[in-house]
């Protein structure tokens, strides 16, 4: 049922370029798709494995820079760039993840945060590689089968295919035995250990897969922006991913996907004032934590449970 709905939703999204000729709406659609992928990756790390990781922002930025540099500096194609973004991030996540995952969850949060900031500093200060605050403008549009994806509508297909493929992969992962093990580790780590499961490889794998997917999403998104500079690592992106995951419901796969699509339109609606927009974001975050701590999906689940209890009484 859910899968059929998801399939229909994906098809409906594929039809967007036929329904509108407005480049603005298609641009919003591309952001919605990439942000949803990044949020789904964060959901794997935070919602399923229970690791609140701010490093996603760093991976998003590394992915963007890796893809852009592959094309501009090293003369590769867009596809190689996105692939490199994913591979590089996966490798970095293993190196960063191993020492930080050994610490307790308090220290993990802070060290992932400092990792994200370190990436920002590198993007700004390693001028010979990243060109510093000026950034890398005029990223070329991707090419495949002799076709240039140079209009927003054509680029939309790339974003769509990327989103469908990664979300399908994440769904397969989250609903598999590995996904269930991750939830078990999140809920009760000592008990999982007692069952003979070592948590570290699972956590590390979730962290690395999340990083690779976030990086690939960053790589796709920077080609939509056509420029990459240190503002690509603005904390605003992290807040967006987090708010999507929290409103959707941590650990609820389809809840987060639905929230990603719905909420990516929100910043556009609130675009009338840059400052007020961020204030409203902050208020939404705080209010959501008090009113619906487990998101819309959690709230619905609770309501269903209450209804079942009522029925049994």
């Amino acid at each position: 049922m859910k899968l059929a709905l998801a399939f229909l939703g994906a098809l409906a999204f594929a039809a967007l370029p036929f329904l509108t000729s407005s480049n603005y709406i298609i641009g919003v659609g591309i952001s919605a798709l990439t942000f949803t992928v990044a949020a789904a990756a964060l959901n794997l790390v935070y919602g399923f494995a229970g690791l609140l990781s701010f490093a996603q922002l760093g991976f998003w930025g590394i992915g963007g820079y890796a893809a852009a540099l592959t094309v501009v500096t090293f003369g590769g194609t867009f596809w190689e760039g996105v692939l490199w973004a994913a591979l590089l991030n996966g490798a970095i996540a293993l190196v960063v993840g191993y020492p930080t995952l050994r610490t307790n969850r308090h220290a993990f949060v802070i060290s992932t945060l400092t990792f994200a900031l370190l990436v920002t500093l590198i993007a700004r200060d390693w001028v010979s590689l990243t060109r510093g605050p000026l950034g890398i403008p005029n990223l070329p549009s991707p090419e495949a089968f002799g076709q240039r994806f140079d209009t927003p509508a054509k680029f939309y297909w790339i974003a769509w295919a990327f989103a469908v493929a990664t979300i399908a992969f994440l769904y397969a992962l989250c609903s598999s035995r590995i996904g269930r093990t991750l939830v078990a580790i999140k809920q009760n780590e000592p008990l999982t250990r007692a069952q003979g499961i070592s948590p570290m490889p699972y956590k590390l794998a979730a962290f690395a897969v999340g990083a690779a997917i976030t990086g690939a999403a960053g790589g796709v998104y920077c080609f939509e922006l056509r420029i990459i500079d240190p503002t690509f690592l603005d904390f605003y992106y992290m807040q967006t991913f987090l708010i999507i995951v929290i409103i959707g419901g941590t650990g609820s796969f389809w809840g987060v996907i639905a929230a990603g699509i719905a909420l990516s339109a929100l910043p556009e609606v609130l675009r009338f004032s840059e400052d007020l927009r961020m204030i409203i974001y902050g208020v939404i975050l705080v209010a959501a934590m008090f009113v619906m701590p487990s998101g819309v999906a959690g709230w619905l689940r609770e309501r269903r449970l209450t209804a079942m209890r009522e029925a049994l009484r």
Partner: protein
Amino acid sequence: MTIDAAYLLQLTLNGIALGLLYALIAVGLSLIFGVMEIINFAHGELLMLGAFAMTFALPVVGLLYWPALAASLFATMLAGFVIFEILLVRLKPDEFERSILITLGLSIILIHTVQYLFTATPRMVDTQYGFDGVAIGTIRLTWTRLIGAGAAIVAFTGLYLTLRFTQFGRAMRAIAQNREAALMVGIRPRTVARNAVILAAGLCGLAGSALAPIQLVTPYMGQFLIFKAFALVIIGGLGNIPGAVVAAVALGLVESWIGGFFTAAWQEGAVFVIMIVVLMLRPDGLFKRGGMRVG
């Protein structure tokens, strides 16, 4: 490159002054973590509020340093009280992730409200001391820096004595060491947590007010410092107050030395590199936490 002794001494003194300011922030974070087991992402914004309070108070009191400092301290402590009563009091123990997201939201709200009201233009503020200072040989220290460092030392001494010898401080240590046992002997966690937040806000306000005449005041000033403070409490061991102080002063020195001999990029990156190395070697921080220790 020959190293000039006077230059090195100047860097060292600057580093200590900088480190003491870091320590004021890190100690507040450690205190709140020790008592409430939450990490306050809005801590840097308390510092920013302190600095803004100082910029607005100084012209009102005719550039006199001390009354403005007192007003700014009062303002940040009040802010700490309000934040605690409205938001933090609703957090139950063991809601760590939720506490982070709530204080993160608060930090976004504070930064952007201040930016909306007072714009992001950096502000400069003058005090009665201006750029006067003392010169010992070729070494020069401005009064504003000296007073900042002095106030920090006085604050740490006061904090140490309070935590060690007063009922008020003992209750805080008791809660940090064993919540249940503290409840059993009649200590109210709510009151103690409120006091800890107000105290930490005051320390942060002191750092903000001391910084206001030294550097530019912007809505984002707290963010840069708070991330360093986070790294510092990790290096020092979460909830370990002397650890945080030692790590902070050491970082101030290291940054100042690196800044004197290398490019600024290395100066900013140092703290993160140190943190990763420390975490690799000692996952619980350099000074492992065993309850909240003050001595």
